[in-house]
């Protein structure tokens, strides 16, 4: 248990130190060291508690509660002030409602509620800790390299690196808090802290756009927080408990479903599901490491983590159906919308939304198989997506743009980067890689649970996924030559984390049977009280491992063939008008014209505006239906 307190408190301390260090070099060193220590701590905690897991409560809980309340008040004041200062009153209103609500609850209603276990370490939280710790610390190291040139390129932004790094570490601490706590008030507190750090990081550049987007993010997240707070109050008053595990163990009756619904709303906002998704897209203005860490790999996972925790209550209940539908619409709509995007970070954002939607579906369907899929999706998605984000960050550095269309010269600029990028993309949608395995199981789970609608949504969504990743990959492999591009150094600080990420993507695919055997199956067996099975047959797993090995071995085995077999090289076919360099052709009036090859975006079909409007209307409708059902349930 000491290890766990250290795990939570160490990043906090690191954040403080970093914030106070003013010298660039020293600070970078500290960041690196702290990141490594965090990772080491994570591994240690995992090692210590993996086999059996623990649950305990602190003796000094009351003091902690008071400290939390104090910080909460301070944060609330800060937010209210900031809201008023920037004329974003909605933020102030939210803060002004929920904090007094929580304080009122804390000081008047809470007496008599005993918390038996405030910290639970089980297989699920271990997996989450592992993701947060490893991916998070890698991204922190990456950020050191990234931020170095970030301010060189964007010299119009004020440099606030120490602030940036310390928020990153603060955030890590808060994330650990969310996944390890069992006490709902603690989860709520950490939840609000992540919202706050997200808000601070999005607003990092202090441009008008950044400011607007950060406030949008904050207001939506605070809205979710309000739902969370309401849920806590409801639970505390009605069931006389504040423990998540106790809540989960209840029967899905109408009265229980009310807080579950509220918590689900909170989870949906955090996971940026439609109709609450606009904040995540706006968050892409933040520097890339924060997008990688907060807006894809970890923070948004807090939402789906909560849904997974609530899964036993969702299952067949009306709330479960509602959440499934919202996830389904998000998955389909965002997969389609990603097609019309050309900004790499936007594509990643839409893809994140879609995948979170998928995880939400899996979690809310709530069968053993679907939860298996959901947890695996979290793992694979975190690793692949943060690899993609940080690669895009470095690509932006190398070629000066993060538009997918400009990446056709990447092969020429940096073969390694494009390879990492390919691994990341392959990890997102190709067959033997993780995401697809999970999708497969998800599909099977949906069929088994007779969710035919979600099966169909999955079929269409996957097809759309294929298209946008496919065309991006296409740009990466196309051999346009990059003349006149100034090559930058690919810093070690950037490359090492990217490389480790890439290795992780591949290794996690190879080792998923192990993960399944040692973590998922025991967790699910315990949760459902029967013996869980790995949903994929052994023979299939073997075939998939063959495929994966082929994908690794084949490219390597081609190298000698290339060396041996030299061929006559001719220019590409340009209807006979090639000028000879594969880049230009003789155009009309004898002018030499540059060949330009661009992807399809099909705006008339997959345009964001129309799709967003419709899917928002549908999801809002679904949520309203949920409210009506709940009220009806309570009445009946």
């Amino acid at each position, binding site marked *: 248990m000491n290890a766990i307190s250290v795990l939570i408190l160490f990043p906090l301390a690191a954040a403080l130190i970093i914030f106070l260090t003013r010298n660039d070099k020293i600070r970078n060193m500290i960041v690196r060291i702290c990141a490594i220590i965090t990772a080491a701590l994570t591994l240690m905690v995992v090692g210590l508690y993996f086999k059996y897991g623990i649950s305990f409560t602190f003796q000094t809980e009351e003091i902690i509660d008071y400290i939390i309340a104090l910080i909460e008040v301070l944060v609330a004041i800060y937010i209210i002030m900031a809201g008023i200062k920037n004329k974003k009153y909605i933020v102030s209103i939210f803060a002004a409602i929920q904090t007094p609500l929580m304080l009122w609850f804390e000081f008047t209603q809470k007496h008599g509620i005993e918390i038996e276990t405030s910290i639970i370490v089980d297989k699920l939280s271990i997996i989450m800790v592992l993701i947060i710790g490893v991916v998070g610390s890698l991204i922190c190291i990456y950020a050191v390299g990234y931020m170095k040139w970030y301010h060189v390129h964007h010299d119009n932004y004020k440099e606030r690196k120490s602030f940036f790094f310390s928020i990153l570490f603060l955030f890590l601490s808060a994330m650990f808090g969310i996944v390890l706590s069992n006490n709902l008030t603690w989860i709520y507190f950490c939840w609000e802290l992540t919202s706050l750090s997200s808000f601070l990081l999005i607003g990092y550049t202090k441009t008008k756009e950044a400011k607007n987007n950060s406030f949008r993010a904050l207001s939506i997240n605070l809205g979710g927080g309000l739902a969370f707070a309401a849920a806590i109050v409801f639970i505390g008053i009605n069931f006389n408990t504040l423990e998540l595990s106790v809540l989960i163990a209840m029967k899905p009756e109408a009265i229980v479903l009310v807080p579950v619904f509220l918590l689900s709303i909170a989870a949906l906002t955090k996971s940026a599901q439609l109709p609450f998704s606009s904040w995540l897209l706006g968050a892409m203005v933040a520097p890339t490491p924060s997008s990688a860490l907060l807006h894809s790999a970890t923070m948004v996972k807090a939402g789906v983590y909560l849904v997974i925790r609530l899964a036993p209550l969702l299952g067949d209940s009306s709330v479960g159906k509602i959440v499934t539908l919202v996830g389904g619409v998000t998955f389909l709509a965002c997969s389609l919308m990603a097609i019309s995007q050309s900004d790499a970070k936007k594509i990643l954002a839409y893809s994140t939304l879609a995948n979170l939607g998928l995880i939400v579906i899996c979690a809310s369907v709530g069968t053993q198989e679907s939860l298996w899929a959901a947890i695996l999706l979290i793992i694979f998605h975190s690793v692949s997506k943060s690899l993609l984000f940080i690669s895009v960050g470095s690509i932006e550095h190398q070629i000066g743009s993060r538009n997918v269309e400009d990446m056709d010269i990447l092969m020429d600029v940096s073969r390694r980067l494009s390879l990492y990028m390919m691994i990341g993309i392959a990890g997102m949608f190709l067959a*033997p890689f993780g995401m697809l395995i999970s999708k497969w199981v998800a599909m099977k789970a949906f069929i088994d649970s007779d969710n035919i609608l979600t099966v169909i949504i999955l079929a269409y969504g996957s097809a759309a996924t294929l298209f946008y990743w496919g065309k991006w990959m296409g740009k990466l*492999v196309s*051999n346009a030559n990059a003349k006149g591009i100034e090559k930058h150094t690919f810093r070690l600080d950037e490359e090492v984390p990217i490389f480790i990420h890439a290795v992780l993507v591949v290794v996690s695919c190879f080792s998923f049977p192990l993960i399944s055997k040692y973590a998922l199956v025991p967790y699910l067996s315990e949760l459902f009280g029967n013996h869980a099975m790995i949903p994929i047959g052994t*023979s299939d797993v073997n*075939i998939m491992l063959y495929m994966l090995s082929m994908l690794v071995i084949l490219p390597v085995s081609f190298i000698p063939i*290339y060396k041996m077999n030299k061929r006559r090289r001719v220019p590409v076919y340009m209807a006979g008008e090639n000028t000879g360099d594969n880049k230009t052709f003789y155009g009309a009036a004898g002018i030499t014209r540059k060949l330009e090859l661009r992807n399809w975006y099909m705006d008339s079909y997959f345009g964001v505006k129309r799709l967003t409007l419709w899917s928002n209307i549908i999801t809002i409708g679904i949520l309203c239906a949920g409210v009506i059902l709940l009220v009806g349930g309570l009445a009946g």
Partner: protein
Amino acid sequence: MIILIIIGIIILAPLVGGLLTGIDRVITARMQGRQGPPILQPFYDVLKLIQKESIEVNSMHRFYIYISLIFAVFTTVILLSGGDILLAVFALTLGSIFFVLGGYASNSPYSTIGSERELLQIMAYEPMVLLTCVGFYYADKSFFVKDIISASIPSIVYLPGVFIGFVFILTFKLRKSPFDLSMSHHGHQEIVKGITTEYSGRDLAVIEITHWYEVVFALTLVFVFFATKSPISRIVAVVACAAVYFLEIIIDNAFARLKWQQALNAAWIVTGVLGTINLLILSYFR
């Protein structure tokens, strides 16, 4: 033993595929009132291509189509040895994606547009392929071909809608008009030869052989719809395969090539209507 079977499949599948392509060409010719090439013409073509010089536009673009071939072989082996249909479909998709990447890798105008269209085609037919697998699972409680074809009632009884939908998207897979946007077997197309534009010699032969494997893959799925454990049904299934193939030839010759909008709409709507309704009914009665 297993290894022998696998080797047998690897060798026989392209022979069957090539022969079918040859028959296709002859029947097509006869339908157009022509004499047509010899039945073995596809083999002559491929052998010729292997004998010819292979030229390249850059060092990378041939790599992808070899991988594509390997995965097409892989798929066929999985399917014919009674393996998991869904896994086979995924492997085939992987192969198709590599084929598409091959088109992009050449960075040539028509290849790139071909790749773009090919991706669109994959997007158009993928839902139906997945739903077909789902349908099999619904009907026979298993993704494994060996389980499905040893059921007592043929899957077609449960899945008539899915079957029609599948035959519909088979037109994409076999690269037949009206859905041969990305790479037509006929000479004249606005994007020249699509993805294959930049390939020559051995590489082109590889693409052709990949296509043969895909033909076998597609017809195997048709076979699975009809086969049960009784031997008569196996014969019926083979006849059904022949009939479907003949139908595809007629469709090929009786349609203009559609544009991508129409292709995407048609495929998605047919999938949405036939596949969905069939599955909904099935899940209702289950």
